[in-house]
C-alpha cells in the first residue's frame, strides 16, 4: 500500500426523498449511503463488495460528484470536490474516470470507436493527426487493433466494447479509476481477459482504483483493501487477505458462506434467514440485526459504528467474532488432507 493519500472521503451520506407520509406530509427518506468515510492511497485498489441495493453504485456516483451528497465531503488529489469554485473541481475530476458495467449502454451507438475514445482526451495542444495517433496508442494499450477506431460499438463483441470503455477512461490519464461491476455483464471466458487487462494497467500505471463488485472472488483478485457494504454502510474494512481469511462481521461471514465453492458437501451451506430490511426510514438500529445469527438486545436500538479492532481491520458490530477457520479454509484443508 502506498502512503500518500489520493482520495479522502469523509462522512459521506445520501438520502433520496421517496414520497411523503401522514397529515404533516413528512418526507420518507431512502437512506442509500450512510456516513461512509475512507481514504485511498496512490496506486491502491479498494474493493467494495455488497449485494444489490447496498449503495455501492450510489457511493461511486457521490465520489465522482455525479450525485450531490446530503452530507460529507470528498477530497481528491488535494482538492475539495464540493468546492464552490466549480472550475477547480472540474479540472480535478478529469483525472477521475469511470468504467461502467454495461458496455452496451455506456457507449454512444452513433459514434465511432475513435471518436468515443478521443472524447475522453484533453484536446489542448494536439493536432488532428496527433489525436488519431493517440487514439491508436490507447486502443493498442487495451489490446485492440487500432483499425477498430472506424467501427461502431454494435460491430464489436461485449469484451471488445468493455475494452473501448477502458480506453476512453484512460484517455485523460486518470489518477483514479472507479470501476462499477466492469466484468459482471461479460461471459466467463471473457471476464478473465478484462480482469487481467485492468490488473496490468493498474500495476504499470500505478492507478488508484475503486473496484465495485458483487463477486467476492473478483474482489479478492483485484483489491488490496476491501470494504463490505450493507444497506448504505461500510460494515467491515480491512486488508483484502485479512477480510477474506478472517472475516469478522456476521454479514461478511454469510456472504463468504453463500459463495459457491464446488466440492463442498451438500447441505453444509449456512444460509441467512429472512429478508433484508427496507432502506426507507430505517430505525436507529443495526441494519443487519433482523437477519443476524449473533444479534444482541442492544442491536435493535443502537447502531454500531465502524471501529478498529486489529491492525487496519475495522468492523461495525457489537458482537463480532473473527472466524478463526473459515468454511473456506476447512474446505481447503480437507482437500489437502485427502
Amino acid at each position, binding site marked *: 500500500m502506498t502512503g500518500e493519500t489520493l482520495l479522502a472521503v469523509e462522512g459521506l451520506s445520501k438520502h433520496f426523498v421517496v414520497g411523503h407520509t401522514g397529515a404533516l406530509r413528512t418526507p420518507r427518506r431512502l437512506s442509500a449511503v450512510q456516513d461512509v468515510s475512507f481514504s485511498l492511497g496512490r496506486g491502491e485498489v479498494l474493493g467494495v463488495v455488497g449485494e*444489490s441495493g447496498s449503495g455501492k453504485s450510489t457511493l461511486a456516483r457521490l465520489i465522482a460528484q455525479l450525485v450531490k451528497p446530503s452530507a460529507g465531503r470528498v477530497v481528491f488529489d488535494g482538492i475539495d470536490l464540493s468546492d464552490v469554485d466549480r472550475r477547480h473541481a472540474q479540472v480535478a475530476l478529469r483525472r477521475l474516470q469511470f468504467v461502467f458495467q454495461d458496455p452496451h449502454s455506456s457507449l454512444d451507438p452513433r459514434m465511432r470507436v475513435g471518436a468515443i475514445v478521443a472524447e475522453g482526451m484533453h484536446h489542448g495542444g494536439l493536432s488532428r493527426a496527433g489525436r488519431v495517433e493517440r487514439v491508436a496508442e490507447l486502443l493498442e494499450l487495451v489490446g485492440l487493433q487500432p483499425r477498430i477506431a472506424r467501427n461502431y460499438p454494435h460491430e464489436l463483441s461485449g469484451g471488445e466494447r468493455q475494452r473501448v470503455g477502458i480506453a476512453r477512461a484512460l484517455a485523460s490519464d486518470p489518477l483514479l479509476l472507479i470501476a462499477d461491476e466492469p466484468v459482471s455483464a461479460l461471459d*466467463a471466458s471473457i471476464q478473465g481477459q478484462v480482469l487481467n487487462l485492468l490488473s496490468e494497467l493498474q500495476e504499470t500505471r500505478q492507478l488508484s482504483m475503486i473496484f465495485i463488485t458483487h463477486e467476492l472472488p473478483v474482489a479478492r483478485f483485484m483489491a488490496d483493501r476491501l470494504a463490505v457494504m450493507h444497506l448504505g454502510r461500510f460494515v467491515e474494512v480491512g486488508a483484502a487477505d485479512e477480510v477474506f481469511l478472517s472475516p469478522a462481521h456476521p454479514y461478511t461471514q454469510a456472504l463468504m458462506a453463500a459463495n459457491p*465453492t464446488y*466440492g463442498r458437501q451438500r447441505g453444509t451451506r449456512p444460509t*441467512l434467514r429472512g429478508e433484508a430490511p427496507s432502506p426507507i426510514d430505517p430505525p436507529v438500529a443495526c441494519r443487519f440485526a433482523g437477519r443476524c445469527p449473533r444479534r444482541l438486545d442492544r442491536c435493535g436500538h443502537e447502531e454500531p459504528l465502524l471501529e478498529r479492532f486489529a491492525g487496519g481491520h475495522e468492523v461495525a458490530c457489537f458482537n463480532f467474532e473473527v472466524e478463526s477457520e473459515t468454511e473456506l479454509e476447512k474446505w481447503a484443508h480437507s482437500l489437502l488432507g485427502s
Partner: protein
Amino acid sequence: MMTDLAPSAPALTQQPPDQPVLAVSGLITTLKAGRRSVRLVDDVSFSLRAGEILGLVGESGSGKSLLLLSVLGLLSPPVAIEAGSVRLKGRELVGLAERELRSLRGAEISMVFQEPLTSLDPAFTVGHQLAEAVRAHRDCSNNEARELSVMMLERVGIGSPAARYKAYPHELSGGMRQRVMIAMALLLSPSVLLADEPVTALDVTTQAQILDLVLGLQAEMRMGVVLVSHDLGVVLDIADRVAVMYAGQIVEVAPALELAAAPRHPYTRGLLASKLSLLDTTSKVEVMPGHIPSLADIGAGCRFAPRCPRALERCSLEPPELEPDGAERTLRCFNPLGQQT
C-alpha cells in the same frame, strides 16, 4: 380436504427404475431465414433420471435456454425443431399437438425462468395466478385450488402464506417472487423441472436460500431437475451431473465431482481454470484466447478448435461426435485431456 401433493407419483413408479424421466437425443433446432438456416441447438443428447439434478453450463449464445424451450415445445417460427427426439417418461414430445403439450406442461414438466418479475402477471394477485395454474390441470373447486396454493407457498418458505396469497407481484421482493415462481412450478408435483438461471437475478445470500430450497424440495419429491446456469460454481455446487455446452452443442457430460477434478474437454478445462475462487491468490487469471464463434459461420471442424490449445490438424477438418467416454461420461473431442480408464 384434497391437498394431495403427489398425484403423479403412481405414474412415476409404473416405469422401470432405470429408464430416464427425460431423454433427449439428436435434437436439432434451427432458425430459418430465407434460404439460410442456422442450427442453434445442434445434435444434443442427454438423459435425466428421477431424483437427479443435471447442470447445464454454457456461456451466452451457447444455446442452453433454447434447448430448454425446445424440450418444452415452446418454439415459434422461424425457430423450430428440425430433427431428434424428446421423451418424457417414455412419451415422445416432438410432433405432439399443442393441446396435448399444454396438458403436460405444468403438470408433468415445468419451468422456472430467470426473471421472476416478468414471468408473473402484474395485474393479478399471486394467489389468483397460482390457483389458476391448479385449475388449468385439475378438476377441483376454487377452495381446493386455494388451499393447495397456500400450502405450496408455505412449503417454499414464504411467511404468512395466506396473506401473501392476496399480494400483487410488485409487493414482493425479488427473492420472494422467485419463491412464488418455484411454488407455481411445483404445484402439481411435476416429474421434471427445467430451471433456467433461477438465481442469477438474485443476490448471493438470497441465491443460497433459493438453491437450498430447490434442493430440499427436489429430494423430497424425487423430481428430475435440469439446472441451467452460466455459473459453473453454482452448478458444480449442487448438480449430480454436469453437461457443458459450447456453440449449440454439448461437448462433455460427467458427474459433477469428476468434471471438476478431471475435465476431459479442453473447453471445460478452460472454464474451470478461468473461474476465480475465493482461495485463489493469483495475480493473473488463466484465460481462453479468442471469443465464442457466431453460429452463422461455423466451419467444418470442431467448433472450439480455433481457441483450443490441444487442436490437431484433424480438428479443423471434421467435426467430432458426442460419444460415450467410459461408463458415466460422454465427450465430443478428438484429443481430450487425461486418460479415461
